[in-house]
């Protein structure tokens, strides 16, 4: 069975058709990333999957359960998922360890509180009041609260917004570690390098529909697209698009007798492909 299965999902707010027929299939054990500009229907889609919003049409199954069902079954379902929201700024008069401890009591099979605190790197701050944490520490606490119930599926919304590069790397390692322990993850992000570093597959959503689903390396024919070879010829910078960059470089090398001045070989970045897909072509 698929972990998440979405067919023909639609949602409107008044006259605005936020989601106009989204289909998605996400497998067990993968990190799946949903990419898209603001207003593309990304948040609406995820919030429907998380059970925060109802849908207008289509079918949705998350862990074999319809998220908009309420009642006891819904509790059992929430017991199996973890949600890390985009912007929570609740700054409580509770310590880190008190907060995590309390949340662990909501679940039938919580992870060990100490282990979780350690794994998100908050060991030194465990006795600090939540209101006194820095932004990055706050985010780590969010993660801790999202994973304390040992979820089978974790929703991760814009996890590293506002992080410095070092903190982002550390965070990515944490997420990869979760996946290797068997947690499936649905990641929404603005950062393409983040999707590239973490995701097994990505889906690009634009104007309420899925434009493409692929691995980050293959998205938009990226793996097979032409490479650009660029070098310096006297005062001039020259470039050539080619399917066979190696032979171009070999020929250049012969011409320059060895070293080619300022040689650069590039393929379109995930960002180039993505911008093209969502209709922002930046030449």
């Amino acid at each position, binding site marked *: 069975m698929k972990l998440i299965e979405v067919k023909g999902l639609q949602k409107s707010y008044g006259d605005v058709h936020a989601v106009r027929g989204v289909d998605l299939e996400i497998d067990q054990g993968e990190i799946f990333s949903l990419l898209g500009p603001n207003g593309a229907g990304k948040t609406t889609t995820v919030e429907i999957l*998380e059970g925060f919003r109802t849908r207008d049409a289509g079918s949705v199954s998350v862990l074999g359960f319809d998220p908009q069902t309420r009642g006891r079954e819904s509790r059992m379902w929430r017991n199996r998922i973890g949600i890390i929201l985009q912007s*929570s700024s609740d700054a409580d*008069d509770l310590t880190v360890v008190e907060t995590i401890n309390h949340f662990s009591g*909501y679940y039938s099979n919580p992870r060990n509180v100490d282990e979780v605190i350690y794994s998100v790197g908050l060991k030194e701050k465990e006795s600090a009041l939540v209101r006194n944490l820095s932004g990055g520490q706050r985010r780590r606490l969010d993660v801790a609260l999202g994973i304390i119930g040992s979820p089978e599926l974790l929703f991760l919304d814009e996890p590293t917004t506002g992080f410095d590069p070092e903190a982002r790397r550390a965070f990515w390692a944490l997420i990869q570690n979760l996946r290797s322990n068997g947690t499936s993850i649905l990641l929404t992000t603005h950062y393409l390098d983040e999707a590239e570093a973490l995701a097994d597959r990505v889906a690009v959503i634009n104007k309420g529909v899925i434009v493409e689903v692929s691995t980050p390396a293959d998205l938009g024919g990226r793996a097979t697209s032409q490479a650009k070879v660029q070098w310096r010829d006297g005062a001039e910078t020259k470039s050539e698009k080619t399917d066979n960059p190696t032979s171009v470089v070999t020929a250049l090398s012969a011409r320059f007798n060895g070293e080619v001045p300022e040689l650069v070989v590039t393929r379109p970045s995930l960002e180039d492909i993505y911008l093209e897909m969502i209709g922002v072509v930046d030449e």
Partner: protein
Amino acid sequence: MNKIPSALELGIRRGGLEIRQFARQRESVVFTLLFPVILLAIFGSVFQNTIAPGVTFSQYFVAGMIASGLVNTGFQTLAITIPMERDVGALKRLRGTPMPASSYFIGKVILIFVSMVIQIILLLGFGVAFFGLDMPTESSKWLTFAWLVLLGSACSTSLGIAFSVVPKSGRGASAVVTPIVIVLQFISGVFFVFTLLPTWMQQIAAVFPLKWLTQGMRSVFLPESFAAQEAAQSWELQKTFVILVIWLAIGLFFSVRKFKWQRT
């Protein structure tokens, strides 16, 4: 797989957590718990007259302050703090966990009830010590007192939760909620003797629970003979019970049906 904890068990744990958090916010502890005492000190010192044989204004005022304490602690506190919790995403986060909504509400009920009991003890202690407050001696009066406190806090808590959907944001909540409470206090016989108010004002007040709570509390703290001076020449305890139950039902209905976990 272990069993998922029951809603009641989680509610009690949430109550403990709410109390711990409340106790750590020193300003609001002082404000919530001591404010009625401060008001009693001011009004008790300014109005030292007797309003009927053997009934001082302090006596009359304590009854009103306990009643309006029920409204402040339940209705006002919740209708202001819940929108704030919603604004910062705390409610949405809770909604994403297996904690049931009822546990959240039970936690709030526990918080309100505990802070109400502390407030009443402070107010009565202060009244007896400094303003010659006479405590009732008959057990029937204490029984009335007990059901008024229980039903009054239940009513005010449920209405506070229900009203929490009205303020658009946490920042504006206080501006929406506070005037309602203050106006109710003025027209319900907390700051003034109720029967001295114009009739139309009394009639408006009679729609809302505070008037009935204050009148009920007067039946506890004022001599039996004072009943004759009430608007209906009686304490009207049965009617009070019915009206509070109706408001409780309205509060519960809207709390369950309309509660908002996230900003839209």
